[in-house]
């Protein structure tokens, strides 16, 4: 029997830094507000509940009249102004919520298994398919979960909960050899 080192972790938890977030609210059934926002974003907005579109930015569905736009921290201010200007004639709101959110990436073959420990949703790749997102509970925190490819999940969480969530993730992933991500 050959001497094997500790098993290589099949999960990696990291913080995606340099991100900016805009909360976008508009009535998709009134006028051309949705289309106006899409022209500025340069990508389609998700119309179906609990889905997101990825392009230059990620646009997550949060509610029937609410979206979260994730973009680069350097781009967020200009993008917010452009959106606000384009939506000026509509009953709409654009708010920069960058300061309140942290984006975490959980990657690897064990990513979904670890997340499933603290989440009531079925996170199997057959059910939670790429392009889907969901606001739900993870551990004791309210999060936005998004499925990238089958081995990658993005988590957007309130900044005040991110320390807790990173510790929770590290604890949940410890049996699988993961280390505590930098705080």
């Amino acid at each position: 029997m050959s001497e094997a080192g500790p098993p290589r972790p099949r999960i990696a938890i990291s913080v995606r830094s340099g991100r900016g977030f805009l909360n976008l609210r508009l009535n998709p059934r009134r006028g051309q507000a949705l289309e106006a926002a899409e022209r500025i974003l340069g990508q389609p907005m998700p119309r179906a509940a609990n889905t997101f579109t990825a392009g230059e930015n990620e646009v997550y569905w949060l509610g029937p009249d609410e979206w979260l736009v994730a973009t680069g921290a350097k781009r967020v201010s200009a993008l917010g102004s452009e959106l606000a200007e384009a939506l000026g004639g509509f009953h709409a709101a654009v708010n920069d919520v960058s300061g309140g959110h942290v984006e975490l990436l959980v990657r690897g073959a064990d990513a979904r298994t670890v997340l499933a420990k603290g989440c009531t949703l079925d996170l199997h790749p057959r059910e939670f398919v790429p392009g889907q997102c969901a606001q739900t509970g993870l551990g004791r925190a309210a999060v936005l979960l998004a499925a990238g490819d089958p081995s990658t999940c993005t988590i957007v969480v309130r900044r005040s909960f991110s320390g807790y969530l990173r510790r929770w993730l590290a604890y949940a992933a410890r049996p699988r050899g993961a280390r505590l991500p930098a705080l």
Partner: protein
Amino acid sequence: MLLIECPWCGPRAETEFSYGGEAGIERPADPYALSDAEWADYLFFRRNPRGAHRELWHHAQGCRRWFGVERDTVSYRIEKSYRLSGAGSGRPAAAHIEASKEKRR
């Protein structure tokens, strides 16, 4: 744990929701015409039936929308959940407030 169907997000665990009490309680058209007893009845008293119950739920950890649920208070079976859109979705209350302002003028 209850599995509650959010009209937007689909079936989710009860822990994602908060309870909002009995549904369909209309604000009186003219609060100033009510006796104290009638006003207290509107504010504080609820039906608490045994059996079918219409109630409000809030998808607090999800899409943060209010919606209506028909639940049996004995079996806890949820007969249906529905969006609070169309008639009776809050617009009448605003109209009532306008009407009572008119009366005070």
